[in-house]
Structure formats: C-alpha cells, structure tokens
C-alpha cells in the first residue's frame, strides 16, 4: 500500500485513538487519590511511539510485559490487568476478571 492509501484507510481511526488517550490522561489528572503502576506503565509505553522508530507495536507490548522467566509459585486467582506490576508488587494489583 502507498502511504496515501494507509492514511485514507486509517488516519481518522488513529486520530480518534490519540484523542481518547489525551482525554484519558487529562481525566487521570483531574481525578483524586493515588494512581497505581498501570499509569507509569502506560506512560512508558507511550514513550515508545516517539521519534523515528521501528516495530513500535512490538515495543509497546514488550514494555507492558512481565520479562521474568521463572514460573510463579501459585496463581492466586487474579486475572491479567494489562501492565506488569513488577517483581515485588503483586498485592498492588487490582483484582479484575479477564477474558478467555
């Protein structure tokens, strides 16, 4: 596909998603109380978009992933939440059902 064709097909969708992201960050700023690790993880993911990079989607996914290789002792019934809490913070995770 040409760049023009990609723009014609996907620009409006990308524009809408950037706006949603900006509005989400504004909404977080207006809200009260403490944030958890997910916001920092999202900011780190967003930083992968800037500049002339390659494989951005892969890098965003890697930045949100658990990089460890050792199995955990026990699955405590928690679902995934979309960002890695880090090696010592599973208790901070919000319990949330996930899809199948």
């Amino acid at each position, binding site marked *: 596909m040409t760049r023009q064709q990609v723009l014609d097909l996907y620009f409006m969708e990308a524009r809408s998603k950037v706006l949603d992201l900006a509005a989400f960050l504004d909404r977080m700023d207006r809200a009260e109380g403490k944030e958890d690790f997910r916001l920092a993880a999202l900011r780190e993911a967003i930083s992968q978009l800037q500049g002339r990079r390659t494989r951005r989607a892969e890098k965003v996914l890697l930045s949100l*992933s658990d990089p460890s290789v050792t*199995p955990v002792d026990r699955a405590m019934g928690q679902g995934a939440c979309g960002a890695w809490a880090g090696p010592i913070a599973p208790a901070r995770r919000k319990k949330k059902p996930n899809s199948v």
Partner: protein
Amino acid sequence: MRYIEPHGHMVSRTTDDYQDMATAGCQVVCEPAFWAGFDRNSADGFYDYFSQLTEQEPKRAARYGIQHYSWICLNPKESENLDLAEEVLSIIPEFLAKPRVLGVGEIGLNKNSRNELKVLEKHVDLAAQHDQLILVHTPHLEDKLKGTRLILDLLRNDARIRPERVIIDHVEEHTVKLVLNRGFWAGMTLYPESKCTAARAIDILDLFGTDRIWMNSACDWGHSVPLAVPRTALEMKKRGYTRDIIDKMIYRNPIEFLSQCPKFKVPEE
C-alpha cells in the same frame, strides 16, 4: 466468501450468531474446551461439558449447515487444584476417541504458575500418547510473553511433539516470531480490545507472510465478535490482498492444519 472459524466457544453464543456466521460463509467451526467463567467443582461437571461439546453442539451447528468439531482439555485456569485436574485428565481419553474431536486443547498457561506447568506437561504427554494435534492458549496481556516462552520451551523439550502439529494461539507482535521461527503454527485472535485488532492482524501478515498462520474470533461469553474473521477478510481486501490469499488465510490454512487429524473432513464444495 467461504471461511472456517477455527476457534469459537459456541456454547456461549446464541443461534443468531450461528445464523450470522452461516450467512457470512462459515463452513466449519472448531471449539476448544475452555474455562466457563467460574471454576467447575467436580470431574462430573467437566464430563457434562465435554459431552455438550462432542454431542450437543455439533447438532446445533448442523441446523445452520455448519460442521462442528471440538478440542478437549482442562483449562490452565483450572490447574491449581491438582487432585481435580488428575481426575479430569483421566476422563479425557474417552473423549479424544469421539469422531468429532480434533485433539487436545486449548491447553497452555494463564498466570504462568508451577501447577499450570505441571498440568500442561500432563496434557502434552496425553497428546503424545494418543497421537493428537495440540491447540495452545497463551496467557493474557502482561503474562503472554513469559507464558509463550515457557510453553515453547516445554514443547521443545518433548521429542515426541512435532511443531507442525501444534498451533500456538493468541499470538501478537511480540510473540509471533518466537512461534513461527520454531516451526509451530500461529493463531491470531481478533478481539475488539485485547489480543489483535483486524488492522494489527493484517500488519502481522504483512510482516510475516501467510504460511502456518490462521485467524480466529475466539468468540465466547466475553466481549468478542463472532464475525471477526469475515470482517478481517474484508479489511484484507481493502489492504490489497488478493481473493486467493484471503481464501488461503481464512479457509485453506485452517484446512491444512486441521487435516493432520484424519477425523477432519474438508467441507464439500
């Protein structure tokens, strides 16, 4: 358009969904055993579910002219109770012998725990002993990368397992290369929010080609779209893919993999 839905949890869907899928050209649906949204308390509960998959659902699908096959296993989410898991594993061979069962699936990992790995290993052993195809579920979101690595290592360490007889499902941009480079098949799940959108799934085809890969809707009781495969086919058309390559992706590739099970019958033209 003709297509195969290689991963749909039809017990969660309505007859309207069957109607829509048939209207869009669905010829075959394959249904892996999965988690019901709550933990089942007994092996009898699993027995009934496996019976529903192998006896009831094929009849329901047939009313819409769709062939129905299933895969049997215990879901990784149900692995922490090892006693129950052992009991369920012992009833699985009875179902593997049924005429519309394609293999062991969807096995895999969920939170990458030691017990999940133990139960995965037992399923892989069962598949090897009974010469079955394997369909693997990879974990969600932040757990996917680690889980995919653990699963691939486990499979590669069992010399009886031939990678071309295993499909690793729910791949995304950060795991697809690991799967394809080791000779396995890769499945892309088309979900509205998590896993792959249609646009990203087609990006993966742009980058990695159309061999040893399929697309599925994994429609279930959660937020999912039973028509995701034909809709992605339409988007492939907009992206300049030919009718022949689209047919390969949504029809001939699933047939190529599934035909490794002698019980799978190619739909009549």
